[in-house]
């Protein structure tokens, strides 16, 4: 049976992992590789690296750290931020990323999704959606990486969820902006509504504050994965314990196992 995934999200700026308070005042958390290895050892099922400076500065992701991560960890990882073309996606995938995630550039030019899926296969193409409650349903927001430019895109979230799948998205990350950073739990109402429209894997993002929130999003919304940043970074929800609790509650989980280091014997 397919296990539910736990995905720490690491914000990367100038080659380091940072933590921002409301997108500002970034504090350096550590070196990319150190944190990647730490999460791998703790039993993370996948990692997402979000290059928070690439997109607003209109530059592409720095290949060097992607290559280092690809060579050092043995779990999958996705790179987000600053991917606006097939060529930029190719550079990141060839540097060793398993998937790429696209958000605002897909809103500006939806054909990009078709191009990426055709070139690399849907399984590499993740679409990130930043969504906020409106009077009637939810609306997609764009340029959310930059508080000065962040604004509504005019698209209805459920409609956009349908369109990105038709265009070839292989996975959707739904970041619920109402609950993001508040640590009061995932937006299960919105995630449930999106789940009904989403036939590809769905990743919940925004709001995790306690182990119970993960249990509820898996049980009530049937999401495939849950993404979180601060609760994992701060250690307030340690991944090994979270995995044990979810498994005890009947959620299919890849059990945490100690890392093995071994080398082939020379004969």
């Amino acid at each position, binding site marked *: *049976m*397919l*296990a*539910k*995934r736990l995905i720490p999200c690491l914000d990367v700026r100038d080659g380091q992992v940072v933590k921002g308070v409301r997108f500002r005042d970034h504090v350096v958390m550590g070196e990319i590789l150190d944190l990647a290895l730490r999460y*791998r050892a703790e039993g993370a*099922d*996948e990692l997402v690296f979000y290059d928070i400076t690439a997109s607003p500065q209109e530059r592409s992701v720095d290949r060097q750290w992607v*290559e280092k991560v*690809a*060579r*050092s960890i*043995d*779990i*999958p990882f996705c790179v987000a931020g600053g991917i606006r073309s097939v060529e930029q996606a*190719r550079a990141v*995938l*060839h*540097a*060793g990323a*398993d*998937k790429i995630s696209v958000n605002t550039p897909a809103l500006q030019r939806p054909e990009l999704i078709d191009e990426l899926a055709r070139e*690399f*296969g*849907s*399984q*590499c193409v993740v679409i990130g959606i930043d969504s906020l409650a409106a009077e009637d349903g939810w609306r997609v927001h764009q340029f959310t990486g930059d508080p000065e430019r962040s604004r509504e895109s005019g698209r209805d979230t459920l409609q956009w969820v349908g369109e990105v799948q038709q265009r070839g998205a*292989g*996975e959707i990350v739904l970041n619920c902006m109402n609950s993001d950073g508040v640590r009061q739990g995932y937006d299960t109402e919105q995630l449930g509504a999106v789940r009904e429209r989403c*036939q*590809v*894997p*769905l990743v919940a993002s925004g709001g995790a504050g306690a182990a119970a929130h993960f249990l509820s999003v898996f049980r009530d919304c*049937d999401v*495939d*994965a849950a993404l979180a940043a601060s609760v994992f970074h701060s250690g307030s929800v340690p991944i090994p314990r979270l995995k044990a609790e979810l498994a005890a509650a009947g959620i299919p989980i*890849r*059990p945490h*196992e100690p*890392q*093995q280091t*071994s*080398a*082939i014997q*020379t*004969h």
Partner: protein
Amino acid sequence: MPNLVLVDSGGSNLGSVQAALERLGVDAPVTGDAERIRAASHVLLPGVGAAAVAMARLREQGLVEVIRELRQPVLGVCVGMQILFEHSEESDTPCLGVIPGSVRRLQASPGVRVPHMGWNQLQQRIEHPLAQGLHDAHAYFVHSFAAAVTESTLLSADHGQSFAALVVRGNYHGAQFHPERSANAGARLLENFLGLGG
């Protein structure tokens, strides 16, 4: 020390597979050279993307017959496994045909999403040195196409249906999951493969 080569099948996971072998202390050069492939003790055929693209890449390099005639242990990974079969439904692609059977699209149904993406548990069907220590382990999968369970299937996994996760036919082996991204289980598979005799 095994003399392993990675066949240049154009997949974007080449570097990651190479790194996974390096972590085990094994140097794994990438090559499209027929002589070097024939001379290797172990041949690994990685693959990400589409079966048709991987086959075209082998054809361009004149490697289709070379791979079909190898006698040493060969391991195909993901799309590299799928092209070991006779045919893939993906773009109706004729494949290498060294393992009987064909590769079909996974069927989505309520609660069963395609692509099949994530960690899934392996179940042993047949005991074999390649599958040693992998029963019940979780491995990382990312794919929309899969081969059915047949008498070549050593390990299977379930995603709406049972499908082949690890297969063997003679000296040809295939893993649908990604050993380079499957943590301990992935390292174990590569070690098992390198332990196979020539």
